[in-house]
């Protein structure tokens, strides 16, 4: 086989693979068993989440049935989680979910735009010191946010944004700069310089090149960044819990943690709330998983 030309080798490969696949030797069975076992373990929390949220309060109290599916699927839990049970002093999570949307959507869009501009400049208009600036920006991605939290709450209070969603939006846009810039910079670096040269010969300036060449090519980059930022901001907790004190202002992560941290017995409602809150990012992941993984890897592997 080594003597064959490369093309012939490549042609031969699919058959070779097929031959290997047909063989059902014990090691392949072991591979499938292992993969299947891990899949079951990974899905246990989902199973618990789903069956618990489909139970009535009485059934979820019956701990001997904790691992068993509900006797009768009780969908009212979801509406109770959304609007609460006022007579028992249980606040609904619906307003907090709306807060999460009001927070996540603008913050995601703004930081994607900012990242796109920064990435364009840092990949195509390098100036003296731009590498150093990029390096200093990237460090901001890794710091423990505890180390900026005290000045942050003080400053937001002083500029009148303390305890507001807009304050939190500003925070997410600012601390999103490193990762969005990184993703766009690496994305635009792949755009051939020839394309840009051609546009410049046609008379396009700095903004013209962006508008006519880079931006139209940017859709996949925007998808990666928007998914990444949406997921991160939706799931974020530390900034939100430090900045927003009033319960009716808080996003869903803070509200859920406050609910589960209290002496609550209605675990069916906690679980239903968690399930509702997890749906947006899970949907994005399932539908656009390819782009989600790209964003994931961008944070670790520098290109």
């Amino acid at each position: 086989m080594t003597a064959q030309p490369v093309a012939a080798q490549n042609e031969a490969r699919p058959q070779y693979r097929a031959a290997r696949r047909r063989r059902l030797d014990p090691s392949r069975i072991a591979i499938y068993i292992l993969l299947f076992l891990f899949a079951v373990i990974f899905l246990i929390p989902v199973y618990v989440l789903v069956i618990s949220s489909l139970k009535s309060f009485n059934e979820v109290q019956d701990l001997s049935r904790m691992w068993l599916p509900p006797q009768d699927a009780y969908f009212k839990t979801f509406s109770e989680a959304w609007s609460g049970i006022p007579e028992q002093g249980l606040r609904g999570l619906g307003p907090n979910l709306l807060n999460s949307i009001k927070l996540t959507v603008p913050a995601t869009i703004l930081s994607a735009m900012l990242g796109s501009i920064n990435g364009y400049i840092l990949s195509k208009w390098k100036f003296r010191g731009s590498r150093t600036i990029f390096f200093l920006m990237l460090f901001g991605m890794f710091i423990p946010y505890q180390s900026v939290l005290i000045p942050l709450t003080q400053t937001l209070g002083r500029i009148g944004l303390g305890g507001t969603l807009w304050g939190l939006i500003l925070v997410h846009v600012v601390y999103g700069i490193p990762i969005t810039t990184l993703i766009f910079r690496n994305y635009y670096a792949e755009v051939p310089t020839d394309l840009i040269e051609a546009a410049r010969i046609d008379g396009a300036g700095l903004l013209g090149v962006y508008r006519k060449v880079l931006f139209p090519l940017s859709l996949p980059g925007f998808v990666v960044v928007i998914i990444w930022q949406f997921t991160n901001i939706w799931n974020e907790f530390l900034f939100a819990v430090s900045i927003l004190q009033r319960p009716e202002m808080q996003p869903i992560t803070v509200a859920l943690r406050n609910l589960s941290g209290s002496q609550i017995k209605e675990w069916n409602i906690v679980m239903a709330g968690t399930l509702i809150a997890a749906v947006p990012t899970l949907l994005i992941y399932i539908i656009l998983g390819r782009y989600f993984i790209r964003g994931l890897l961008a944070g670790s592997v520098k290109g």
Partner: protein
Amino acid sequence: MSEARRERWLAFLLILPSIVLIAIFVYGFIGWTTAASLSKWDGVVPDYTWVGLDNFKQLFSQEGGVAAQRFTIDLWNTLFFTILFLVICVGIGLLLAILLDQKVKGEGVFRTIYLFPMALSFVFTGVIWQWIFAPGTETRLRGVNALLNMVGLDALRWGWYTDPSMPQFTIGGTQITIPFHVALIPVIIAAAWQMIGYTMAMYLAGLRGIPEEIREAARVDGASEISIYRRIILPMLQPITLSALIVLGHISLKIFDLVYSMTGSGPGFATDMPGIFMFETTFRGNHYSQGAAISIVMLLMIALVIIPYLIYSFRREVEL
């Protein structure tokens, strides 16, 4: 001004807002926090009276004040949490990646299942696993304990994250206590559940980047599948292991949301972490200068890991 110069300025102006924001919100604020950590600020009203390293001495003092006791536990917890979390994520992540690389049917489905926890909030993970590992009481068993009881494995029941104990040994008459709180085990499991898929995705991307020709050539030379992995593929994955260790390590050094929502500080600070201590002492106790000092220690720990890695990545990029 020439057109080229004008454009150069425009480019700089476009990126200037981001530079200013990062300069203030990252570097300015770190400086501000450092100033707070060296101050007397202990209450709602800021007080920047200089006290030198007093706040740090209080965290590390030998006299054994409450803060020092708690912070010592926090550092041990962070150390054990980080080591176990890294070993589990890298070990199982690599295993799953290799298994998925065997041209299995339904690879996409398996991959989706292993990776979906990454799309969830650490808070949601904490809430779910809090419910799963809640031990219950002898008469009302809950969570995993109820499951163990159901299948007759009562011997394996224990207090999970409510157990404040540490492993003890007696060697030659002297009792040795390992400063590892067993209550961390359920928390580590939850964290690993969330991050194994990520590690797997990194390794899988690495494996897919290795040309089939290399393996093919080794097979032709008579190498077994196992030795191909041991001698050729695993060494090629080393840069990925480094990236994974750095990314996972810095997450675990600053971990907060997961532990805070799953167990909080735990019994006797058994699951406490510097991030929780910082948050509680600052925003619940109003001990701002102490909170600032803790966060500076956290920053230093992470900088020690991240800065060499960033420099290494930048150098590698230049070579390309």
